């Protein structure tokens, strides 16, 4: 169940839409933020607030690949491996993450600190390879630079 502040936030979001069902997508984002990913608890909580049957909330949520559907680390590393990044060594960086941190694409570090998501192009071809950690953007990546960056996220 959500706390009062979150309840209010979702109610407010829902007020912007003609029906509560239309507010599902943004409400699921809030739930994802609160629960870390969309699991049964998150869908049930959203269903309770919006009054939308939980099976429908789950049907909508699972349709979209960009929601997080399984438990994630505290910080999410999103690494681009599209053409420019690939040519400039993104795949090697992916191997580096695997060897150094035990972080496989789609996986999570044993300590729950990081998750790795392989991203489609994030529009940084000129400064490739590039990645996002949570909402922060990093470019011209090297193995050493990645080590420095990840140090900032505990």
């Amino acid at each position: 169940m959500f706390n009062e502040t979150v309840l209010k936030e979702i109610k407010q979001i829902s007020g912007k839409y003609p029906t509560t069902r239309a507010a599902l997508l943004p409400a699921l984002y809030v739930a994802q933020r609160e629960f870390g990913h969309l699991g049964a608890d998150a869908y049930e909580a959203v269903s309770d607030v919006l009054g939308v049957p939980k099976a429908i909330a789950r049907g909508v949520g699972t349709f979209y690949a960009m929601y997080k559907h399984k438990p994630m680390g505290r910080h999410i590393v999103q690494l681009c491996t599209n053409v420019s990044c690939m040519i400039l060594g993104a795949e090697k960086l992916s191997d580096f993450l695997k060897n150094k941190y035990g972080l496989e694409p789609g996986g999570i570090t044993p300590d729950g600190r990081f998750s790795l998501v392989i991203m489609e192009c994030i529009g940084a071809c000129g400064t490739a390879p590039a990645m996002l950690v949570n909402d922060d953007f990093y470019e011209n990546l090297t193995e050493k630079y990645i080590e420095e960056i990840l140090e900032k996220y505990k």
Partner: protein
Amino acid sequence: MITININGKEIKLEKSVTVLEAAKAAGIKIPTLCWHEQLGQYGGCRLCLVEIEKIPKLQTACTLMVTEGMVIRTETEQTAEARRGMLEFLLINHPLDCPICDKAGECELQDLVEKYGAISGRFREKKRKIPESFADPLIVRNMERCVMCTRCVRMCEGVQGASAIGVIDRGGHSHIEPFSGGRYDCEYCGNCISVCPVGAIMSRMHKHSYRPWQVTGKTETICPYCGVGCTLVLQVRDNTIKRVIPRIGSPVNNGLLCSRGRFGYEFVGSKERLTTPLIRKNGVLEEATWEEAISLVANKLSDIKAKSGSDAIAGIASPRCTNEDNYVFQKFMRTTIGTNNIDSTARMGFAGAQAFMENIFGQGATANIISGLANSDTVLVVGGDPTTANPIFGLQVRACSRKGGNILTVGQMKGLEYFNPVKADPFLYTEEVLLEGIVTALIGKKGLPGANLTLEAKIKDINTSLDDVEKKCGVPAKELARFVDILAASATPALLIGKEIVQSSGASYKLLLLSAINYLANGRIYLLSERSNEQGLLDMGCAPDLLPGYRPVASAEFRKRYETLWDTKLNEKTGLTIFEMMDAASRGSLKALYVMGENPAFNLPNSSAAATALRNLEFLVVQDIFLTETAKLADVVLPALSWAEKDGTFTNMERRIQRVRKAVNRGGMEDWRIISDISKNMGVKLNYADTEKVFHEIAAVSPLHRNLTYEDIEDGHAIYPYKGEPLRDVMEEILTSKGKAARSTGKLYLRIERPLFHSGTLSTKAPALVKIYSRAVARISAETAASLSLDEGDIVRITTKAGAIELPVSIDKAADSSTVMLTNNFEGQGAYSLMEYTIDPVTKTPVLEGVEAKIVKMTGT
């Protein structure tokens, strides 16, 4: 008028419909898979593609509306090619496991491929592998076979309104799942099974036990559970009911079923069924022959009649037996025995409420057509959730909401939660004040219409302001004002009355207030009924004060007519109600009781006291299909035939008479035949060649059923008031008795839970229903659980003045914190065993309000 041309055939249409409907009307079949007549347009499967002149591409017939001059070709090389292509796509993943698929033979995909081909697939990829899910006890899902027509999801959401399943994931990974991914947490209506065109969603009950073409008998009959009277088709093989399916187009349920109707039939073949008569010898029930049992009953009843008089004998009729059974039973009591001591559990609420309403609005006031409810602009629900008490009727309320109607609820109605109800949820036991408030406000808004002065005299002085209501009931005045505004503005309101309000303190006064609301809003009344023939048994005269067709016993003028027809003198003394019978039995003035298909030792409140009263009888006869709690106390037990083994008629809550038909054979006799045998042994002939002959007599005797025949019933013409004469314009004084609100804060009160999955104890003999709802639980709120430090499943002892039982608790988020909910379905753990009661002086219904309960956690569990 629109003229179109399909396959060279000219067709004229009144209004624009879809190409598919136009073709159907003209007798031209267009193949479909995602389309279903109970569901809306979807256009997903692309099998109904047709050629239309002047449109370059093929069009889906199920979504395209016809226009003037449209030329359509449904079977061309191009359409066949397209259909073959679509089927080839479906067969990429659909396994060719027809030899082991139960659907084979009635599979729509199989039929389509047989017709259009896709003889060999050109795809080399492997078919997707998803293991068949047996996580649910009743519904098995095989998602390899799913063709994503989404009929099940649309049925679940758009018709049933349960929204328990959805399409999960996307594209090639999409599949249908309940929320949990495994076991269903739903209403188990099984309507998803009905609409699945392939073998993806099926019932586990008959898995691998037969093929569709091996069904030897299909019998259309009426459901034995609640008062809605849904049509069921029983499919039989080897004299066993294999499957129950609905029929699209049937009255009342039109292709839909609820959990009880669909899954609750297995009691018929139960090993626990009584097979032979039993006679108590030296305190033990022993097997006996029919001759022995019948002559014993006849002799014993004759002796008691001679010794203590006719009125020392009483009979309890059955709301699960047919009209014919009940008619013969009351005739037996009135003529052979000579008493009006005949009643039934309809006295628990239905009979009293109906009589009260009919006194005000005239006979037949509650005979309103069920399917009409969906077209109301406003539905007011009071005293119980129709979606659990009468599930298919509940769907009408949901449909009403979907069509834009307003749903007004008094009290919690879980099943209507997703249907935008405008709620007035008063504190426990303060409904009286709330209803007074509504009446006052309605009079203020609409004035008194002056049509029924007797009623107006009773209500004109009611004066409870919305602020009073807010103070006493906790319903904000502003919200209630909106509630009343909707009601006042409604042109076609309907009022649904459930049992809880009829079993509350001051029931007659509340019924007066409800009548007033109905009168002021100019609505129509529906009384929820929990038994399949509760209405019928009253029609048949199974009441201490009324003869068949509702003619009062007390009137010599009416009595005379029956005396002539039955060729006997009738007792003029009004008989005992079922509760008075129990009192008389414990006092010793009632010596013998004949119980047909009823279980008073369990189904009456304070049931342990009822059992004690029954033990006090000199002679107790129980005629039933199971050895019930009551039968265990009997001196003679007579095994009867169940509903599926006999012919007859049921009358549903809208007073539609429908045919019950025999589907399976079993040795033994119908209830009425047993009674007529006993009567013969007592020297009075009640002989009928068959059930239809009994109905002939009913049609001759009951003025309400005058000249009605089985043919009329089969033609669907047996809708109230038939061809008969209801008794009109004999309004008696409206008597009411106000209640005492028996609530104090901090106390827990025991209330009856009326679960969707059970009905009486009969459903507990149906293994499938027991799998869904397997045991009695005490349902408490999270607050109560916290204050007593209880967790889900902890065993507690509930104690009331009437007794104590031990059972697990279940915590319900939505429950009221001052109540404990308990069902009355499971042997030894019925709520009624904990409920003492008083009788409302007017409606003669038991008051089950204010039963204080204590909950104690059992240690060591």
